[in-house]
């Protein structure tokens, strides 16, 4: 086993374990932190593939921004985990059996015999002055400009739908319109309601 293989298996093991932890841990904050660990280890694996830019972006964007925001939301919300986890144990035997079978089959197929390092070689070593970032920038704006644009459109869809689904005027909100307040006339401020006189009950 070469050193890079060792590094790969080391990080891959942590990645799988932390991913398992994300879906099984009882505490949502723990789950989010384990997800951060999963991101960091996958960044390390990308580093092995000489994709430094992507690895750094993963840490910066996902760990640095997205997950922090996510943790914040998890802490703010009062999620009833007991209700969410209802039925977990009753589904576990069947689900676990299926998962175990699936994993076993995948190990048989993807074991070293068919999909080892020999069949799926890593990228060739690159010269010392090679800039990953520069290459990526060049490709994104030339060869991959079409998928890049579509990805941008997908983000636009996300914005449009997020606004369409969440922005609405709540009926119970005490929304005030300053323009209407300023334009109000004296006659609109007070309304005198005439009511018939009622006699008080005799005691």
């Amino acid at each position, binding site marked *: 086993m070469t050193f890079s293989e060792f590094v790969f298996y080391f990080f891959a093991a942590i990645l799988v374990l932390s991913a398992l932890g994300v879906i099984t841990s009882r505490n949502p904050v723990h789950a989010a932190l384990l997800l951060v660990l999963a991101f960091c280890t996958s960044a390390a694996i990308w580093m092995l593939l000489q994709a430094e830019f992507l690895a750094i972006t993963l840490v910066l964007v996902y760990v640095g921004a997205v997950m922090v925001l996510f943790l914040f939301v998890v802490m703010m919300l009062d999620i009833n985990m007991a209700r969410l986890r209802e039925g977990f144990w009753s589904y576990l035997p069947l689900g676990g059996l299926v998962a175990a079978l699936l994993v076993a089959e995948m190990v048989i197929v993807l074991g070293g015999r068919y999909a080892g390092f020999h069949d799926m070689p890593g990228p060739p070593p690159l010269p010392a002055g090679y800039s990953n970032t520069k290459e990526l920038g060049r490709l994104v704006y030339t060869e*991959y400009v079409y998928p890049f644009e579509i990805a941008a459109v*997908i983000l636009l869809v996300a914005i449009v*739908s997020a606004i369409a689904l969440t922005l609405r005027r709540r009926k119970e909100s005490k929304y005030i319109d300053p323009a209407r307040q300023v334009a109000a006339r004296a006659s609109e401020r007070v309304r005198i309601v005439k009511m018939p006189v009622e006699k008080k009950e005799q005691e």
Partner: protein
Amino acid sequence: MPYITPLLPAYPEVFLLVMVCVILVVDLFLSDDHRIVTYALTQLALAGALVLTYVTASAEPVTTFSGMFVDDLMSDVLKLLTYIGVATMLVYSRAYIAARGLYRGEFFVLVLFATLGMMVMISASHLLTLYLGLELLSLSLYSMVALQRDSPVATEAAMKYFVLGALASGMLLYGMSMLYGATGTLGIAQLADTIFYGGARDVVLVFALVFIVAGLGFKIGAVPFHMWVPDVYHGAPTAVTLFIGSAPKLAAFAFIMRLLVQGLGAEQLVGEWQQMLIVMAVLSLAIGNVTAIAQTNLKRMLAYSTIGHMGYLLLGILSGNLTGYGAGMFYVVVYVLMNLGTFGMILLLSRSGFEAENLEDFKGLNQRSPWYAFLMLLLMFSMAGVPPTVGFYAKLTVLQAVINAGYVWLAVVAVLFSLVGAFYYLRLVRLMYFDAPADTAPIAPRGDFRILISLNGLAVLLFGILPEPLLALCLYSIQVSL
């Protein structure tokens, strides 16, 4: 080094994207009374894309964007039909969405974005664009289902659709990443070449294939990946159900053709995916048709019938030859035509605060309006596959292809299950003609709706009497594109 990309083949996509952005901005300045402008602009965008696609159509496949975009006759035909389907859906659903507070700019913008996603999928010749197009379509559809946010059924449907759709995308991506690992390329043509020259291990390819077929099965709603279909069809606003059930099926067909037939169509792999598709097709035919009988909700019944129809589509594709693919294309086109009409009828009978989604709502339609009852009769006959409607020819061509490919038993199974299917389509006809109406509200659609639904219903009959031109077009476009 100058880098020039010929944009001409992609003009329809570029035009549509520009129009979506224009509509998005223009809509901001419109009051609710002038929303008709957004509607008109949306129809205009579709019409413009139609003209551009027609003008730039060519029988020779043209690729651009470094081989990530292909413009061949199959894509042109499918795109033209997509525009027509989307425009028809907009006409049908206008009154319906206006009555439910969905007549907003976002609805039209999302429809156009979804259309753009379908166009990207139809014209993709690279796994990356294929996937991005699918995501563009799916994301727009998820939010359209959820647009009626005060309805708990719609929200639940959107949630299910989103979670299962994300799972399916994950499977598809995993399969694609295995393909990339095995072949070192994402381009569909290069993929096919590498596999043809034996540049990849079969075991890994088959492994990738399993995940890809599972992902595709989810997306088209074939058994055993169909769980989301009834809930989404039932829960979504009927206009959105109509949309999901129509044009995206054309894009899904293109997706399967590009990925399975063009990309993974090598000799040793065809046998593998044929087996998987056979299992999916038989199960879809069985479960779709049998479960539909037990439904009292028309939208749920049509959802199960969709599953059955997808089984037929898979039958066409698994024949593994050009005639079979052509038959599959013909089937999906006919299916979209019938689906548009049937959901159009549900929209026709619905009104503000009332959904005509139960079978009883169609009782005695003949007494309320003989013409619409007749149209619905044609559509139901076509769905069931009764001659001389077009549904009969669609089923017939698929069955011929299956028999030619040597799967006689499959054809027998398919016929048996369409007999089962005929029961619930004809039950609706019985309700319309032999029962007393439960609901006596007048049916008074707008003029454009009335004309279009009449054309739609008559088209089912017309193409049934003269199926040759459409069938020949499908066969020819497949032949020159593969």
